């Protein structure tokens, strides 16, 4: 079992690296292409993975990863489970502001409401931000890319006076106390 | 220094301090230069070591390869070298056994490749369970389809997947041939069948392509029956139906040739007897060319 560690490698000049983890490998590809094409003043590398752990062979060439994004497709139970399993292969240091979750298909009518609640609970327990994305439209993908890039800039240290930890303490997901109550009703 | 000259009345201590700083600075610089020198030397040394190791490795590889080559030539010559020969050559090297095996392996591989090149089968290990045999077919020097068989070797030999057309009686061949014990014979029969089928199909294709005046009235999937219509020239040009039957499915040549025409005398004419023999002996598309030249058909 190899943990992915945030500080085991030296950062490169003017570079930020983001890792997108998605079980289905559909949305991550589109998102990666959008992120790369966005205008920005740092060099952004996107790495795509289906799940963690990452293959050991690539260990040598893999740069320091500044942000890990788990993409969860709410219509698929498998997508959630896969993300949950992958979390175990991440060094605890990452959870100090270098992980975020991106949920797609949340508005789909076929999604059972419990699934969103369980995702929110999971994310809240890890003190991470939770983003929602519309993956069917270009606009939605663009917005998601912009938001991820903004977070990435902070976590990779390209924004003076701000850190990932600082940002995530402001943006982290919280579960309203009445969710359980609603369930109960 | 210039500062010191300009303000000679300044405190002597200040001057000393400055000098000390200069000296320190110089020392640091010197140290750096020295370090760079040493570093460079170390670097060069490391490269040297790496190169030496690489050279040794290449030398060893070269040696192994030459002895392998020698063994190969020996193997190719004698077909089964005695142990002593090998011992002699290798001067009792520990690796002789391995080398021998390696040589044998390359030899077999080359044989398989050669076999594949002359139209045999190509055998490939699949992931885990069995082998995939591909049978290339050709007709008159032209490569046509390649058929594949995936054979499962676990406990009992069994064909798990293939792309052989359904009108080739594969199952009958499996039942009749002794596939469990003699897979080679089975593959030979199959290959013969496939080559014959592809050959007949290619002939039919050529007939359609080359001979516009000859009409193909009927044929079937296995290409074992071919009914052609052509005109026989004479005072009264007549249409004739020629039926070619390929009853031996492992052959590209017909086993029976019949002709039907309004002119009943045609079938028994000596001219036709000759043509019939020609059709029985040469592939149909070439026979038709000859017939046309002779003027038997228009």
């Amino acid at each position, binding site marked *: 079992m190899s943990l992915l560690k945030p500080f085991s490698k030296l950062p490169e000049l003017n570079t930020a690296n983001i*890792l997108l983890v998605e*079980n*289905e*490998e*559909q949305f991550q*590809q589109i998102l*990666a*292409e959008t992120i*790369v*094409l966005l205008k920005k003043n740092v*060099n*952004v*590398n*996107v*790495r*795509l*993975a*289906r799940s963690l752990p*990452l*293959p050991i062979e*690539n260990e040598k060439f*893999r740069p320091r990863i500044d942000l890990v994004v788990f993409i969860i497709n709410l219509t*698929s139970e*498998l997508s959630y489970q896969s993300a949950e399993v992958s979390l175990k292969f991440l060094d605890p240091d990452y959870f100090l502001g270098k992980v975020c979750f991106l949920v797609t298909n949340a508005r789909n009518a076929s999604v059972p409401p419990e699934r969103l609640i369980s995702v929110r609970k999971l994310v809240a327990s890890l003190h991470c931000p939770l983003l929602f994305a519309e993956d069917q439209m270009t606009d939605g993908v663009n917005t998601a890319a912009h938001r991820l890039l903004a977070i990435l800039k902070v976590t990779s240290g390209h924004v003076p006076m701000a850190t990932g930890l600082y940002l995530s303490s402001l943006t982290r997901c919280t579960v309203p106390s009445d969710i359980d109550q609603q369930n109960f009703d | 220094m210039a500062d010191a000259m300009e303000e000679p009345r300044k405190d002597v201590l200040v001057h000393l301090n400055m000098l000390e700083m200069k000296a320190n600075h110089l020392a640091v610089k010197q140290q750096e230069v020295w370090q760079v020198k040493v570093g460079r030397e170390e670097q060069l040394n490391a490269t040297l070591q790496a190169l030496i190791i690489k050279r040794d490795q290449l030398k060893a590889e070269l040696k192994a390869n030459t002895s392998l080559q020698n063994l190969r030539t020996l193997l190719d010559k004698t077909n089964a070298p005695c142990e002593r020969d090998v011992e002699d050559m290798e001067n009792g090297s520990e690796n002789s056994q391995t080398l021998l095996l390696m040589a044998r392996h390359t030899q077999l591989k080359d044989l398989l490749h050669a076999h594949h090149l002359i139209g045999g089968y*190509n055998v*490939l290990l*699949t*992931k885990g369970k069995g082998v*995939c045999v*591909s049978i290339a077919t050709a007709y008159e020097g032209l490569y046509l389809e390649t058929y*594949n068989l*995936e054979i499962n070797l676990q406990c009992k030999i069994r064909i*798990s*997947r*293939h*792309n*052989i*057309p*359904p*009108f080739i*009686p594969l199952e*009958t061949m499996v039942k009749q041939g002794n596939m469990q014990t003699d897979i080679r014979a089975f593959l030979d029969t199959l290959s013969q069948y496939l080559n014959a089928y592809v050959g007949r199909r290619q002939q039919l294709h050529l007939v359609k392509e080359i001979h516009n005046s000859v009409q193909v009235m*009927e*044929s*079937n*999937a*296995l290409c*074992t*029956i071919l009914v052609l219509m052509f005109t026989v020239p004479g005072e009264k040009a007549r249409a004739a139906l020629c039926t070619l039957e390929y*009853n031996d*499915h492992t052959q590209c040549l017909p086993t029976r040739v019949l002709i039907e025409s309004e002119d009943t005398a045609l079938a028994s004419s000596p001219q036709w007897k000759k043509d019939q023999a020609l059709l029985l002996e040469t592939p149909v598309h070439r026979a038709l060319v000859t017939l046309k030249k002779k003027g038997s058909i228009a």
Partner: protein
Amino acid sequence: MDQSMKRTLQRLIRRIPFQLLKTTLSKWAHILEEDLLLLDFTQPKCLFTENLLSLCEGKGTTVKHITELEMIYIIENPNQVMWRAFQLLDAREDAPSIELTQFKEQFKAHLTELNSHVSIKIKKHTDEAVWIRIAWGDNFTKPNHLKPTYAVHHLQTPYVFVTGLTVKHKPLLNQALVLTTRYGSIKDASLSGRNLVAIRDLLMRQYQQVFPTKHPKPLQEKNHVPTNPNIEKEQIENTENRLQMACEAFGDGTLPQLQKAVYQLETKFRDNSNRTLTGSDEPFRGVVEFTSTNLLESLRHAVSSGIASTPVTPLLSSITQKGRNYFVVTDKGV
């Protein structure tokens, strides 16, 4: 033209979609080209049918002509009905040598021997398929042309594709087929679908199969996008491997269109808390059905995108390997 014939023709014209009417009728040898000019194809269908009926009345149309038109339509558009595949077993020695005229004569002879009140029509289509149309009757009724049975057989192959066959007539057709094709027996091949070409290709293995080779050609990546140097896939080998496995299991390129696959599970119910079910002698049955407009394509995508696990389970790969889409799964396996 009697009443029943009129009804048959009316029904047939109603079945043919408007845009196909002209092409279908122009292939009908019974109607000449100048007759076709008299017909107005812009008319509503009921009016058009009336005109056609009166035209046919004048030409002395018989049942034979109408069945001819029906066959033209069905042969050109075989995908309107459900086809079932049957497999002939135990070929006799002389099975591969059968040819068309023999087949025609013998089939007619064998079937009329079993039931003399049938109307049979056999036609050879260009792609070497023999189309058989049978209208069934019995001792008291004339052959019913409204509900004919169609059977498609490719000579020298052990497969027959049938549509519109009732349980009553099945043994008759089966026997006639077995005798004519010189086989030992016939069985249901557990394959059905709306697309005749697809089920034929699947059984006759005429789709593009992928085999492991010594010189692997790079698999064509579907909707390939130019990769940006800044994007890197961590598990790229994995993806390629899955694609290869998916193609080996289901084939490459366009796949035969199957609409569904059915798995019927028959097992013994084991749960100590439920006495009635556990104790019963009847097996416990469950049915799993996969449906899609192109099932094989969907399954291949599911495997190559990683939704389904690899290696592909034999249950799914059996669809192509065995050419079936109906499976009964018992305790001892498929």
